[in-house]
């Protein structure tokens, strides 16, 4: 079940035109609502695209039909994380990866917290 109004999507592609990373996605945002509507949510949950989403809300801002693809990406990530039940190690690894990165400038806390949140169910 999703709170996104998937039935309203008309596959116009405006979300993907606005999305700064759609060009690199295996399944760009204008397919997401359709996938779920057609009962293929599982294939969306397996797509790499849901992890590339930046949560920038551009797709939702430009959609003429009030669909919010950005929410479908988060819901699909949660489906995967909850099913595989690897929340803790996944989150820990991400944070370790960030902290251990040799960087010229201290990584903002905001990013560490967001990375943990992204990989928690």
């Amino acid at each position, binding site marked *: 079940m999703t709170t996104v109004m998937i039935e309203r999507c008309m596959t116009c592609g405006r979300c993907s035109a606005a999305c700064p990373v759609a060009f690199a996605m295996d399944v760009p945002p204008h397919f997401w609502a359709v996938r779920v509507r057609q009962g293929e949510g599982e294939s969306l949950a397996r797509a790499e695209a849901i992890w590339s989403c930046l949560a920038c809300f551009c797709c939702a801002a430009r959609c003429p039909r009030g669909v919010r693809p950005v929410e479908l990406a988060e819901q699909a990530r949660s489906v995967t994380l909850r099913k595989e039940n690897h929340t803790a190690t996944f989150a820990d690894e991400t944070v370790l990866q960030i902290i251990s990165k040799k*960087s010229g400038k201290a990584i903002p806390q*905001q990013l560490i917290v*967001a990375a943990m949140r992204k990989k928690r169910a």
Partner: protein
Amino acid sequence: MEFLYYPGCTLSTTAKILDKQARSIAAALDLSFTEIENWQCCGATFPLNADEIAPKLAAVRALIQARNQNKPLVTLCAACHHVMKQVNHQAKNDADFRTAITSYDADLFYAGEATVLHFMEVLRDYVGFDALRDLLEYPLKGRKIGAYYGCMLLRPSDVMGFDDAENPQIFEEYIRALGAVPVSYPMRNECCGGYRAPEDALGCANLVERIAKSAAGRGAETLITACPLCLYQMVEHSGGAVDVCYFTEILAEALGVDDDDDDSND
């Protein structure tokens, strides 16, 4: 005018300069800022799943303090601001969410009564950009400054209510009030890619580099931002096409409250 100030985790650690500049500016402008008691990290992202309640409780607790003390809650970090606004909006409009938060703790009855303001909105609506102009010791004459809004202050615009998400003007008006020339460029409301930085620094580098080049191409010498993550991304990955600083830095300088003992952005 009295405000409750929510600094958040980044302003207490890697973005101390933003906190310091804001406090100096508030003092110079006679704004009374009281740091909110026992604040907890806002979580940096607003969970979009309807069944995630616990990650929003820290924001609810801060908002309840603001309501009970009848003072607007002021934020600086774009992420804190985003989360506070989103949670406040949900508490006001979603009865199921209100019920869910009280099931964690009966004292958390909250229906979105607090006012959440970004520091920039305090400057515009409580001080006024015209009044601000008259207070400057050192107007930034001739400087070419671009606004880098990013995502979180603007979208979703019906919730954030910060400015027109497609053609925002508030930062440009602020830059003009400080005596500088605002440089408009097409990518000022684009995402820095920060959410994906841990996994794909290179892909994100591309995004900020395009934004920085877009600004430099229109003649911007400096970009201002309210977001520590945007600033980090720009400094790390934009290839130095343009200087970046917090929006408070140029006001601190123009007011002459920039005490310069630490001009790094850490």
